[in-house]
């Protein structure tokens, strides 16, 4: 095999002159033909198929696939089943945010990560496991198991977040105090962002990926002239950003951080913590609202085009499917990385012109920024000396 599947890396090359990044080149990762695996399959096989292939975020992909197929085949499912799927992806996002934080905070082996992993698996099973894709018979989520699990998850995440978890509505001053005095894993992870030159590193303006209606999505992923490029997707001719910061940008604490540090490293890291806390709270609330699940309706047709979008840990995930005569005949997936690592998008704009300090500091700052935008993107970073571009004369 010429390409290892787990290492389809993206290349980022930065030219540095006088401790400033003066050129950025982003070579998108090679596209893997993942969509081809769904072709010829009956719809009911596809959510599980993608859940196996995308084994780090299986619930997000399976949910997007199920919803796209329901749209294509005119299948209606109950709000309770939708809620169950949403809670599964919430658990998955909590797990990913927590594990990425633990991996990056330079921790040694502790009992916490294995407990978290096992607990999340248990919660997803108690939320119905794979049966949330068109259950054949009614079932009831195991409320007792879910309550016990949610309490345990709350304890684990509060351990990760320390005092931030217990402060109901922290402001920036409270966060600074937390960073100075707490010893939790989140603080160990965030503290480097307080170094001089780090908090607003990567500050830039890139518009958020807008809320898409289904017709917009069908146009964006369809075969017509509005189709977005898989390697450099744009909307309204502009690169877009998706992910934690976009999702949390209306939270009071993040608005305060944006006013001080812009969309730099500090605000981005803080947005991940705010999101982690918010997800666990919404999971606890959501579990209390669960109700018995009824099977969905039978397909209203044997073919059609369907789209779906869902928020995965890394950002917006979009699926589009076309079904004919009961078989999948076209499939397309647009992943968050495609937007955030657009060759002239978020990462490009964040890095170009940024002051980076000496060589060691440059690498550390850039890597920290890339990891906070997307901790799951396999990349190779090359730093090289460069000539500062000569400004183009205006006249």
């Amino acid at each position, binding site marked *: *095999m*010429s*390409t*290892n*599947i*787990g290492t389809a890396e993206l290349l980022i090359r930065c030219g540095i002159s006088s401790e400033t990044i003066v050129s950025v080149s982003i070579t998108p990762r090679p596209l*893997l*033909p*993942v969509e*081809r*695996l769904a*072709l*010829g*399959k*009956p719809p*009911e*096989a596809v*959510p*599980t*198929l993608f859940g*196996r*292939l*995308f*084994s*780090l*975020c299986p619930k997000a*992909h399976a949910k997007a696939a199920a919803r796209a197929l329901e749209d294509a085949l005119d299948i209606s499912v109950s709000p309770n089943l939708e809620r169950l799927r949403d809670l599964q992806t919430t658990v998955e996002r909590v797990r990913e945010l927590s*594990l990425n934080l*633990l*991996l990056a905070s330079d*921790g*040694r*082996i502790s*009992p916490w*990560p*294995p407990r978290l*992993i096992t607990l999340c*698996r248990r919660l997803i*099973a*108690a939320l*119905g*496991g*794979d*049966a*949330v*894709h*068109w*259950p*054949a018979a009614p*079932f*009831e*989520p*195991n409320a007792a*198991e879910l309550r016990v699990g949610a309490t345990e998850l709350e304890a684990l995440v509060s351990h990760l977040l320390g005092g931030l978890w217990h402060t109901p509505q922290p402001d920036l001053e409270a966060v600074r105090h937390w960073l100075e005095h707490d010893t939790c894993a989140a603080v160990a992870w965030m503290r480097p962002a307080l170094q001089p030159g780090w908090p607003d590193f990567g500050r830039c303006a890139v518009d958020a990926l807008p809320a898409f209606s289904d017709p917009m999505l069908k146009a964006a992923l369809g075969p017509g002239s509005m189709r977005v490029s898989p390697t450099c997707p744009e909307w309204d001719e502009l690169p877009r950003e998706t992910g934690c910061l976009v999702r949390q940008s209306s939270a009071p604490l993040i608005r305060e951080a944006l006013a001080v540090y812009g969309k730099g490293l500090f605000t981005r890291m803080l947005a991940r913590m705010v999101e982690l806390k918010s997800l666990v709270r919404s999971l606890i609330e959501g579990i209390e609202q669960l109700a018995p699940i009824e099977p969905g309706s039978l397909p209203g047709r044997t073919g059609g085009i369907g789209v779906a979008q869902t928020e*995965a840990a*890394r950002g917006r995930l979009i699926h589009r499917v076309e079904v004919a005569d009961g078989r999948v005949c076209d499939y397309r997936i647009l*992943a968050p*990385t495609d937007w955030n690592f657009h060759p002239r998008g978020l990462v490009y704009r964040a890095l170009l012109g940024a002051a980076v300090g000496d060589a060691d500091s440059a690498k550390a700052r850039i890597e920290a920024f890339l990891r906070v935008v997307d901790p*799951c993107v*396999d990349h190779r970073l090359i730093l090289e000396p460069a000539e500062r571009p000569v400004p183009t004369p205006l006249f």
Partner: protein
Amino acid sequence: MCIGVPMQVVRAEPFQAWCKGADGEAMVDMRLVGSQPEGTWVLTFLGAAREVLEPERAAQIQAALAGLRDAMAGHYDPAAAFADLVDREPQLPDFLREPT
């Protein structure tokens, strides 16, 4: 793409383990899953084990990745791949099933 790769522990060391998978052997960071005995399947991503896998789940993911490798090489057979998913209904976890 959030695609993890199953690997099997060959030799455990403190904080890491020498593992083998379909793409060869590699040293894997085990901080998230803890030390695991020889023969254990783990889901790896970017050099770190993210989860301990049951052998059945490891086999399912490996089969999916094999399908992807075939697609990359241009000889993917849709009729043969994922045969276990065709004509099958989604299953509830055991503890949610009605006793029979």
